[in-house]
């Protein structure tokens, strides 16, 4: 059971890849799935590795990522996490 979960809004995502570069656990990658604007959107290729640290969301310029964490883990701050 992963500690965290990322939800990418595929219509907001522009496939810039900043979240892919910043994720410490290789959770995200660009897909071959194109949104209605023609951008190859980011997807969680290794969702099991997600800790819910939210570095991806902190970096996303289009506010396309929401992050969830396990209730038990949510109380313990991860580096950079939880800042809206």
């Amino acid at each position, binding site marked *: 059971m992963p500690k*965290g*979960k990322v939800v990418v809004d595929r*219509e*907001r995502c*522009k*496939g*810039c*890849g*900043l979240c*892919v*570069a*910043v994720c410490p656990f290789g959770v995200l990658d660009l897909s071959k799935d194109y949104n209605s604007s023609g*951008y190859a959107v980011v997807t969680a290729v290794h969702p099991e590795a997600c800790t*819910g640290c*939210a*570095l991806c*969301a*902190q*970096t*996303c*310029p*289009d*506010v396309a*990522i*929401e*992050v*969830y*964490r*396990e*209730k038990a883990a*949510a109380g313990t701050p991860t*580096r*950079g*996490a*939880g*800042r*809206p």
Partner: protein
Amino acid sequence: MPEAETMVKVFARPTSLNEKHFTYCPGCDHGLITRLVAGAIDKLGVQERTVFIAPVGCAVFAYEWFRCDGIQASHGRAAAVATGLKRANPDLVVISYQGDGDLAAIGTAETIHAANRGEAITVIFVNNQIYGMTGGQMAPTTLPGQRATSCPEGRDVATMGHPLPVAEMIATLAAPAYVTRQSLHDPRHVAQAAKAIEKALRYQVEGKGYSLVEILATCPTGWRMPPAVAHQHVADVVTGAFPLGDLVDRG
């Protein structure tokens, strides 16, 4: 949804932002700065009395994304518009959001005099060292040797001048309450920039006066670099030319 029972949301969209999509290019830091400004408005609980002033440039429609009032100023005149708004309605929280072409070229006079008068406004200065909207021309902040469509051989300081150090210039004045330069090239710096924007807004709310937050931003399209490479370029090169940190804090 099963996640609802075991998972809690730890990162959500700021409530000061509406649902409209940003119109910026992929990987552009403007979107990130917009989100940080909205986060600061949320934290201070001033959404109902905030007026967001958009510049001319890529951020010309920036007021479209906030759940607060907005005005789009003539090119470079955002600080003058902000002055009028704030003087007529001192209870408003007035944010002037400007790029380098707007603030540091055509709007230099308004910028310097608003700062020198200590107008109680918050200026967010997006320094991406290029004119983005018009096609990547040289800006006052373009680095020596940096190529742009109007200096294809690179900026030659002998004929085109040196990059304009806006934060340092404003910091020489007596009135400003807070002048800082921030960057967004990694999550640690994003968090620091968020704190700086929040402090600048808080100083306005507390009546401490003028603040300017210069933010080193990327223009992946104008720079012709992938977004992650552009962030690395900020870390390796741009922060060398434009040092980070607080220059004035009279809070």
